[in-house]
């Protein structure tokens, strides 16, 4: 398969770019932040996403979606990254749709997937517990109780957790932190007794929550996939999410870079555009090269996810690690090369820096993924 977009994928990119750049430029995020919007996203825009078929991109046609893959999800995420649009797309259409499609029973799929596709159901994946992403270290307890389980524990950085109508929760039914065996995924109603949700206002003005589970009862039907054997499913879903976030970072990096190069051509000091200075030219060229190489690595990972999900781990680790370092460099150079203006809230560049920091942490930062790669290679 060629490592470029095909015609249909290019068309998808154009339509996503058209919609997002028109309806949700960076000013859209700024307005949601400044108005202290309760949900932190635009429901109206989400309905448009559903009408255009984006919300059900990964949902099979049988359940009302388009049945497309990680490459297409990445295309939409990249456009989201360009304007920093806060959208339920990642949590609902990528993570939850993947989890339900791959792990769900027929009943679970037919209950939830059509509602994801038509935009009426928002969902969230609750994995992280500590300061860093360590899914294998999942400690949250799910103890057998009657016909079901009782959940106890805390989850953090649950993307869209405050607005979700369905939570997918990783908990431990056996084993201890660090073991793959014993992790189980649950579908949980966020309105269930014992759940406390706190929306966390984040540095990037995007949406996440901390969720406390205090003896939350769920029945046996709420298990997604197999009891004790949920880790491979979780890892697959996380890998699709990592590919998606890496794509978002490619879009973000390219947008920051484009704005920065434009500024280098326009800003004059010492009587000439600062882009004439070789010190800046070489740094801009290095950043361009970095972004292009990362773009290839990310597309490679997305194609690997579609071709053979179970064996895409190393390609995904490379993509997420690269995308993290590239985005970090892009926003740092972006602010630095904009000089004092880059430090002002009035300029958009700072928004990109803030979002890049969150994307780094989401589902494992560059260090985490470089370490994963090293382990996979046996050193």
């Amino acid at each position, binding site marked *: 398969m*060629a490592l470029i977009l095909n015609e249909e994928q290019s068309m998808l990119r154009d339509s996503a770019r058209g919609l997002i750049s028109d309806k949700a430029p960076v000013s859209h995020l700024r307005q949601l932040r400044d108005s202290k919007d309760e949900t932190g996203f635009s429901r109206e825009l989400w309905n448009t996403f559903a009408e255009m078929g984006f919300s059900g991109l990964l949902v099979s046609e049988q359940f009302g979606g388009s049945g497309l893959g990680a490459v297409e999800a990445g295309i939409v995420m990249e456009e989201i990254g360009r304007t920093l649009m806060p959208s339920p797309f990642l949590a609902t259409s990528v993570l939850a749709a993947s989890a339900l499609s791959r792990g769900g029973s027929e009943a679970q799929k037919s209950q939830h997937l059509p509602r994801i596709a038509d935009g009426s159901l928002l969902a969230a994946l609750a994995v992280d517990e500590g300061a860093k992403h360590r899914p294998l270290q999942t400690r949250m307890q799910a103890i057998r109780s009657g016909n079901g389980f009782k959940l106890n524990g805390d989850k953090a950085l649950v993307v869209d957790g405050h607005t979700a109508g369905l939570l997918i929760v990783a908990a431990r039914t056996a084993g201890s932190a660090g073991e793959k065996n014993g992790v189980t995924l649950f579908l949980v109603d966020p309105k269930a007794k014992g759940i406390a949700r706190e929306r966390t206002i984040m540095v990037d003005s995007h949406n996440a929550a901390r969720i406390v589970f205090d003896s939350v009862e769920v029945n046996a039907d709420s298990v997604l996939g197999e009891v004790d054997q949920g880790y491979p499913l979780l890892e697959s879903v996380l890998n699709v999410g990592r590919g998606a976030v890496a794509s978002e970072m490619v879009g973000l990096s390219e947008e920051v870079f484009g704005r920065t190069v434009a500024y*280098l051509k326009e800003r004059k000091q010492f009587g000439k555009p600062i882009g004439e200075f070789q010190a800046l030219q070489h740094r801009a060229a290095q950043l361009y090269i970095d972004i*292009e190489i990362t773009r290839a690595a990310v597309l490679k990972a997305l194609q690997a996810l579609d071709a053979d999900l179970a064996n895409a781990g190393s390609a995904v680790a490379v993509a997420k690690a690269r995308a993290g370092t590239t985005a970090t460099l892009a926003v740092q150079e972006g602010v630095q090369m904009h000089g004092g203006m880059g430090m002002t809230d009035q300029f958009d560049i700072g928004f990109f820096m803030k979002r890049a920091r969150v994307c780094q942490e989401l589902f494992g930062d560059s260090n985490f993924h*470089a370490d994963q790669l090293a382990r996979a*290679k046996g*050193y």
Partner: protein
Amino acid sequence: MADLEKFRSETRAWLEQNCPPEMRKPMTSDGDTFWGGRNAKFSSEPQRVWFERMRDKGWTVPHWPKEYGGGGLDGEEAKILRQEMAAIGARQPLTSFGISMLGPALLKYGTEAQKKEHLPKITAGLIRWCQGYSEPNAGSDLASLQTRAESDGDDFIINGQKIWTSYANYADWIFCLVRTDPVAKKHDGISFILFDMTSKGVSTKPILLISGYSPFCETFFDNVRVPQSHVVGTINRGWDVAKYLLQHERAMISGMGERGVGRPLGQIAADSIGADAQGRLDDAVLRSQIASFEVDEAALAAAAERAVDLAKAGQAHPAFSSAMKYYGTELNKRRYEILMSAGGIDALEWESERSRGGARPRAWLRTKANSIEGGTSEVMLGIVAKRILDLPGA
């Protein structure tokens, strides 16, 4: 698609049957590379067998037209052949500057007679070429070159000196940049010309490098007579040919280094440093350097694959090979810094049999030229800034 799958399975079967087991092992020394030429010697019988089988199949240069001794494969087929060769670790049967540099320039700018004369001898490994570009006072500022070619009837008389001419002492022919108009602006008076290294007045002198090897030469021209019909492209428009060729040279250099073959770098390091109880390399800082290196290496491999696909689709920027050259060479230098650190004291031996004649430190020192030859990293960044980013005054 079905045709391609058929091609893949036939190719796989053919390689399986025809590639000797010895030619599927990673190369360990310079002698493992077969360069062809009038004085070519095979370092082993399997090397000869492998070369001849591939030559007869047209696969020394699979994507060149059959009429010039190539395999006539299209882009997809050539990619499949590369993948299948990589899958069994098959070595390149023939390496030459004729394939990687001159050939593409001749295919674009050469006359039919020039193509017929030179390309089949390249694919058959009969003629080994060298590149006469740099001069003592024309390095990064290549277009200021001073070697002059003066008209004399149907010939040019060439006088001057080249430097850093790779393997000039082994080469049969040279493709050379000469000044044919000393008055014109520096880019407008250059011609691209081909001649035999046995011509009267050509002499070479190897340059001893820090690695202890002499892959480069000084090359002197003293009244060398060359027919004007040996100019490729138009007289005084040789800079266009030179630049086009450089794109290919840079693409080649960016691919130097043994990416993704053999054992992972971390395991090579663990051989000498050891591992902790969890099986992790017993040098946490080096381990993290290796891990980031391998992330970047895998990403570059994807970018190289994508560059080929973009070119095929007509979406490639012509200056992108400069970007790849920059990144590939800097990465290869990082690789050898890691290998030296991983080898520690053992990697310091220069002459023992144990160290295969100091293979590692010599290779480490050799990589330092990667970011200089074919255009320095700084020149590459300048090209990206000017031609791709369109920054002012670059």
